[in-house]
């Protein structure tokens, strides 16, 4: 639930997924379904059977992401517990996958924030049915305590908080006051769009037990964390304790939780751990199972083998395992797959690449439209070599079925249509030669002309770098390149390591490489649940993909961040879908598999597809009688 979970964290998974492709057998994939709920793969069984108390649910942890910090407001280099939410609840709970909302108000610790004072001040009212396991109420002071510690952490080093954005939260907090035990008033420097506040600020907050953790030494004095020096001392102590993996399960600090589970056992060597129900839990749906075991895995293929052996209750897989699902079904597993709610798969365009006048050519919207017409999203999803049915088309940032869906809905603005692409080119002064390749024969800026800065004789020829793994990325680009060839556009594809692309392409962080790439496909990105593109498409953003710069887009993105209009983001996602700041590729599905002997609300399993195991509600699961 961060703003922009980076692709970097996924790298370990990606590398091992490549090796696991080899075990993909001949079993055919589940037919792709689609419907208004957005389910794209498999189907959700309704919760069945009577709950039975007890039993141990075993969950496969994501490969290479063993937790190494218990302190919830961790640093950017830390890996959190994948079931952290089961111990420390976020201030606002995420809504179920497929919901039009992004927040589940019922399960949240507070009422939805109320904006006032031109959208600068927000009031958050805590609910009173949540208690810490030491009996204390979860209240406004706990939120302030958490924010005080984040401030202390950032003051020491911006690297100390994973959610740090320069000039953003919490640096833009002007004041925070607990007007009473349950009410928090937060005033920000600028007016802020209420959705932006809710999704990008408030929902990232994790209240911490302010009366149990406000110490700077074991058994030490309880300090007033609003004094910055105290906050620093407390933060230093907690963050140090949080990194002592050998004491994760024994440190009394970490036994003070407000979620349905607490940590019982942690294996520092492997990263495996066991949660048991928190018997002091006061919230809704306490756990029915005896324990949740999170098993560590060294590779997805090792995980796959354990799934096939029926030794796991729950696992999260990526799209490359779609073909294995039939085999798992025979082993008695349910499966459900869909892309993450804020996923997008851009072919990044380098708007500043001057090689062969690429910057001039690509600045023309009709060229980008023509290129998007050449990307066969439904075809790639269906193709066995690409997603084998486990994917969904994507035409802008906000996904269909959410409040932020574009106004064109699920209808592609530029569907796969090579004829339309050819026509766009022909209509704008590009003529196919005897070998089929297009050249500009009508320079100029008028109607029917190629456009500004494009000379006569200009060719449509550029390069496209794509990640060498997973294989699906290479395959979808190969298909795209060959479609482009048909209409006279010469794209030279080149497979590169993901690392190389991160370091040299996408945001032009390597200026020397600026003229050496025209397009780059690095695979999936994730945006926040309020998917404004301001951090990566706004002019001057520090991570501007391909140096896209468009005044209208900038205005819309500013509105998404600052205006009080709840529909600001719809305008943004609609415009971006039509303006094509990059080319859209389909989103591969995340696949959740769970054994049929456990049950629970269907959405609790579907939610696994959101961020893998990142936001679980395992207390909803139970064994059937």
């Amino acid at each position, binding site marked *: 639930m961060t703003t*922009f979970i980076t692709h970097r964290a996924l790298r370990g998974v990606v590398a091992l997924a490549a090796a696991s492709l080899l075990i993909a057998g001949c079993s055919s994939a589940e037919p792709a379904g689609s419907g208004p709920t957005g389910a794209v793969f498999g189907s959700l069984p309704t919760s069945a059977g009577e709950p039975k108390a007890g039993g141990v649910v075993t969950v496969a942890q994501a490969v290479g992401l063993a937790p190494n910090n218990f302190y919830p407001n961790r640093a950017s280099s830390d890996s959190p517990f994948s079931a952290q939410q089961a111990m420390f609840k976020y201030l606002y709970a995420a809504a179920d996958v497929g919901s039009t909302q992004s927040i589940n108000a019922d399960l949240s610790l507070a009422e939805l924030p109320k904006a006032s004072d031109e959208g600068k001040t927000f009031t958050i009212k805590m609910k009173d049915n949540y208690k810490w396991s030491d009996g204390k109420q979860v209240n406004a002071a706990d939120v302030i305590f958490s924010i005080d510690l984040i401030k202390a952490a950032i003051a020491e*080093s911006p*690297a100390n908080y994973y959610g740090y954005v*320069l000039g953003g939260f919490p640096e833009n907090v002007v004041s925070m006051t607990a007007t009473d035990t349950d009410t928090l008033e937060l005033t920000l420097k600028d007016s802020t769009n209420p959705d932006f506040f809710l999704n990008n600020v408030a929902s990232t907050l994790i209240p911490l037990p302010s009366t149990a953790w406000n110490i700077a030494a074991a058994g030490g004095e309880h300090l007033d964390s609003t004094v910055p020096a105290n906050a620093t001392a407390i933060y230093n102590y907690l963050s140090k304790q949080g990194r002592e993996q*050998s004491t994760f399960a024994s440190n009394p600090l970490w036994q003070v939780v407000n979620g349905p589970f607490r940590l019982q056992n942690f294996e520092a060597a492997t990263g495996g751990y066991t949660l048991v129900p928190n018997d002091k839990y006061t919230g809704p749906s306490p756990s029915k199972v005896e324990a949740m075991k999170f098993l560590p895995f060294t590779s997805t293929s*090792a995980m796959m083998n354990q799934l096939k052996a029926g030794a796991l209750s729950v696992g999260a897989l990526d799209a490359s395992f779609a073909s294995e699902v039939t085999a798992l079904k025979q082993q008695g597993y349910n499966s459900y797959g869909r892309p993450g709610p804020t996923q997008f798969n851009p072919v990044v365009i380098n708007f500043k690449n001057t090689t062969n006048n690429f910057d001039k050519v690509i600045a023309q919207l009709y060229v980008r439209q023509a290129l998007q017409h050449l990307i066969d999203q439904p075809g790639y999803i269906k193709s066995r070599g690409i997603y084998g049915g486990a994917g969904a088309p994507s035409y802008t940032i906000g996904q269909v079925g959410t409040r932020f869906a574009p106004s064109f809905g699920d209808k592609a603005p530029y569907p796969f249509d090579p004829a339309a692409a050819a026509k766009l080119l022909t209509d704008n002064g590009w003529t196919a030669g005897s070998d089929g390749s297009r050249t500009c024969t009508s320079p100029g800026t008028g109607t029917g002309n190629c456009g500004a800065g494009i000379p006569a004789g200009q060719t449509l020829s550029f390069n496209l770098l794509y990640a060498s793994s997973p294989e699906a990325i290479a395959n979808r680009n190969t298909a795209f390149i060959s479609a482009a060839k048909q209409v006279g556009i010469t794209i030279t594809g080149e497979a590169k390591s993901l690392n190389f692309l991160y*370091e040299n392409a996408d945001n032009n962080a390597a200026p020397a490489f600026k003229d050496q790439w025209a397009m780059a496909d690095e695979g999936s990105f994730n945006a926040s649940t309020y998917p404004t593109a301001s951090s990566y498409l706004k002019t001057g953003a520090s991570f501007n993909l391909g140096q896209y710069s468009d005044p209208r887009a900038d205005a819309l993105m500013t509105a998404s961040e600052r205006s009080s209009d709840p529909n600001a983001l719809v305008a943004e996602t609609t415009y971006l879908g039509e303006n094509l700041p990059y080319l859209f590729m389909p989103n591969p599905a995340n696949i959740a598999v769970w054994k049929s002997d456990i049950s629970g609300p269907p959405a609790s399993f579907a939610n696994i597809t959101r961020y893998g195991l990142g936001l679980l509600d395992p207390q909803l699961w139970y064994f059937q009688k």
Partner: protein
Amino acid sequence: MAWYVLRRLAISILVLIGITAVVYFLLYFVQGSPGRAVLGQRASPESVAAFNTEHGFDRPVLVQYFSYLGQLLSGDLGQSYKLNQSVATLLGQNAARSAMLSLAALVLALVIAIPLGIWQAVKRNTVGDHLATAASYTLYATPQFLLGLILIAIFSQAIPLFPSQASQSPSPWVIFTDPRSMTLPVITIALTSIAVFARYQRTATLEQLGQDYIKVARAKGLPERMILTRHLLRNSCQPLITLVGLSVPALLAGNLIAETVFNYSGLGLLFLNSLQREDYPVLLAYTLIGGALTVFGNFLADVALAITDPRIELSA
């Protein structure tokens, strides 16, 4: 002998210091900004700068190197950038497990490869020998992870004899406490070694079979079996001893593939992950240990050779 050990030790320390210098400077020039590596591409330049200052990476490289050496002398291998643990702890957690897995595989490989190699040499150029040779080449050429997956597909999934993952207990003694779950990983590692060892053993045995003392033993009227066990075995094992000595570093670290396939967290995997995370303190320590083990393995092989071959004297 004592002098020999001391002398070897002195040389080893010099070699190891050399290794630290080479590896340290190589990594220094490769890694660029540790802060960037640790915090990721999305981290702000402020975060990166802060990280580098905090960890002393803004100092001149020589200063950094000597402070690293100083730490080493006090037994401190440094702190992992990414795992929030000291490198020593990380290695401690993983080394024993890796070593036991490798050792078991090594013993199994030797127990099979030595008789097999001798048998092949005795039956050289027969159908059996050719089959064994073909099998050796096939095994050697098969990527280990494929071998592991094939074994799992057959012995775990088609015929469920063994679990598909190694024991998850953190104890290094799982080989004995849970032998069934260690069967497939051990066999996977052993198979590749068997292929190599058997080839070596076959060649060495062939050479020994050509020696006159075999003829002399035959002329004494000894049965072939006794010739092999009493006369040939010890002499023909010497090349293998050197080979095994050289594979000591792999004992700790060489099982990346098996560890990955069989879900057995060990040093090999730690190294791979550290490489992906650009976690240089771990890489540095790992390389250092590799160097130490290489030196140690050679030394062990020399001593073992001196014990099996009376012609070799370990003199200072």
